[in-house]
């Protein structure tokens, strides 16, 4: 039976703002399927976002939803999680939102290892403001603020997350939809801070300037570029050129989760008095 997305979508809130050909809709659906499979009471989920095209997602879905300021979603989410540690807190963010203006919050959420699931919609560009380069824009790509080709070097989001202390790091793409469902589920199940980078297509502001003639070209680029992690590891070095791994890239189950650590301190103090 076909999946009933309507159960989660707020009545009257569609159509969404995303452009034709944008892959955010595909990821949105993956998110709904993944959450549904977890059988979590939707009253117990908070979905938080910052500002950007990606960050408009919470408006469409029937959870407790919070659309905050640019880059700050993780900090708002940290407050929610600390106030109600037994609830599920998820964040959706763009690459600019998460790693430029929100870079500080991003690395500190990783370090704290607080039990929040972060999905970074990486389209390598600032979509909402019309195509300026972001910290993930590859060198030599074009953007409105890099009209001669990007001279900046990009962040690798999973590496950044791992280095900063996140205990679950994964990468998926809008093209690999079935695998994406599983990655979202794994990220949600992980106790600790989970970072899932999701590679996305922005035909409107990225594709157009970077020789992707259609949205399909962008999806095909994902198909050719992203290789499951186990397969990637087995590739001879010359074959990894231009390829990137996807799947669960790093996982640590023994890392102490922040709220649990804090509230066990509270318990200890209460026993003393």
């Amino acid at each position, binding site marked *: 039976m076909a999946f009933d997305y309507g159960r989660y979508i*707020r009545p009257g*809130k569609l159509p969404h703002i995303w452009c034709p050909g944008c892959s955010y809709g595909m990821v949105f659906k993956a998110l709904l399927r993944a959450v549904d499979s977890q059988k979590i009471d*939707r*009253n*117990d989920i*908070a979905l*938080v976002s910052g500002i950007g095209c990606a960050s408009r997602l*919470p*408006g469409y879905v*029937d*959870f*407790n*939803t*919070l*659309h*905050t*300021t640019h880059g*700050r979603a993780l*900090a*708002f*989410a*940290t*407050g*929610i*999680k*600390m*106030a*109600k540690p037994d*609830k599920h807190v998820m964040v959706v963010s763009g690459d600019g939102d998460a790693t430029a203006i929100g870079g*500080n*919050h991003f690395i*500190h959420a990783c370090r704290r290892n607080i039990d929040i699931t972060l999905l970074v919609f990486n389209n390598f560009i600032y979509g909402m403001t019309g195509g300026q380069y972001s910290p993930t824009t590859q060198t030599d790509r074009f953007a409105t603020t890099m009209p001669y080709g990007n001279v900046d070097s990009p962040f690798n989001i999973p590496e950044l997350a791992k280095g900063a202390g996140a205990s679950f790091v994964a990468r998926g793409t809008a093209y690999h939809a079935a695998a994406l469902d599983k990655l979202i589920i794994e990220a949600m199940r992980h106790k600790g801070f989970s970072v899932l980078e999701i590679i996305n297509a922005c035909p409107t502001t990225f594709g157009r300037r970077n020789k992707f003639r259609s949205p399909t070209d962008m999806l095909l680029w994902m198909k050719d570029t992203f290789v499951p992690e186990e397969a990637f590891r087995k590739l001879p070095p010359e074959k990894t050129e231009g390829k990137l791994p996807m799947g669960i890239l790093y996982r640590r189950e023994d890392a102490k989760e922040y709220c649990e650590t*804090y509230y066990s*301190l*509270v318990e200890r*103090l*209460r026993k003393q*008095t």
Partner: protein
Amino acid sequence: MSRVLLLQGNEACAEGALYAGCTFFAGYPITPSTEVAEYLAKKLPQIGGAFLQMEDEIAAMAAVIGGSLAGRKALTATSGPGFSLKQENLGFAMLTEIPCVVVNVMRGGPSTGVPTGPGQSDIMQCRWGTHGDHPVICLTPAYVQEIFTETVRAFNLSEKYRTPVILAFDEIVGHMRERIEIPEPGALQVTGRPKPQCPPEEYLPYDDRKGDVPPMANFFEGYRFHVTGLNHGPDGFPVNASPRIHTDEQRLLRKVESNRAEIVRYEEHRLEDAEVAVFAYGVCGRSAKTAVETARAEGIRAGLFRPLTIWPFPEAQVASLSARVKKIVVPELSLGQIVHEVERCAKGRCPVEGIFRVDGDPITPAQIVDRIKEGR
């Protein structure tokens, strides 16, 4: 039983927060506000509350809003530069009507300025720091005891009117130790946010049909709703229809303006027959009180108007004062900010004279006495 303690102003602020039922603090250390955080870092875990030292003031303000939306009474404390960093998210809380208390222990500025000296030059930042139009409630206690009671009041106003409340006091009262009496629980009124009575399906988080302060559900209580910093309709979803935006922003202003009688609090000291009035808040209010006594001892009919609520500004009170006295003297630890508000309200009915100082030292009673006498 009430408790008698010797506390610093900053500690009294933390005690006031606890008395008001605050169980959530997020902050980032900055002199001269740090003791608020340090005190709560010790106390909050003992009572099951949440204490978070965030990566910066922006994050702290965000976390406080998140904590409040999830149902806690939440506080953050900062000073000058940190207060500037909080402004964007403070504006978010204004528009989304999420209660919280923001303490600004004022120091000298601009920039890093005089971090260990007192200042009052953030007072306009308290009013106009964030972008867009919105009301501000800002309280300015001057004594350690008063910091305690005004902190409790700040939480009450914040919850009742669904709005952030700023508590601005200066480094001197923040760091000064005085005897304070903490009343027993229940002796001071403590209020919570207006809660919805309707079934969740009917809940509209910004429904203004029954009044200017719509009831507020928290996250995870079964009322699933959307909160956004975009201008929004009664259901919380973005609108860009012009009449709605205008009326909603007017409602925000109105919920404070039409409740001035409750919000605006001040002390009047020997003003009944005064010829010269001093308008002073915070530490200047303390110097001014001594100055008034000194002047009176010399046979000069001086009096003091000391606002505990600086925003909304006590406009009507200053207007009527200006009609009764020969001049108003305004000592402030800035190069002239609040003096312009006093002038605005006096509308030329009497001269308004400022005494300004920004070198990190307080304005002395003697300086104020001299100005009271001048031109007589």
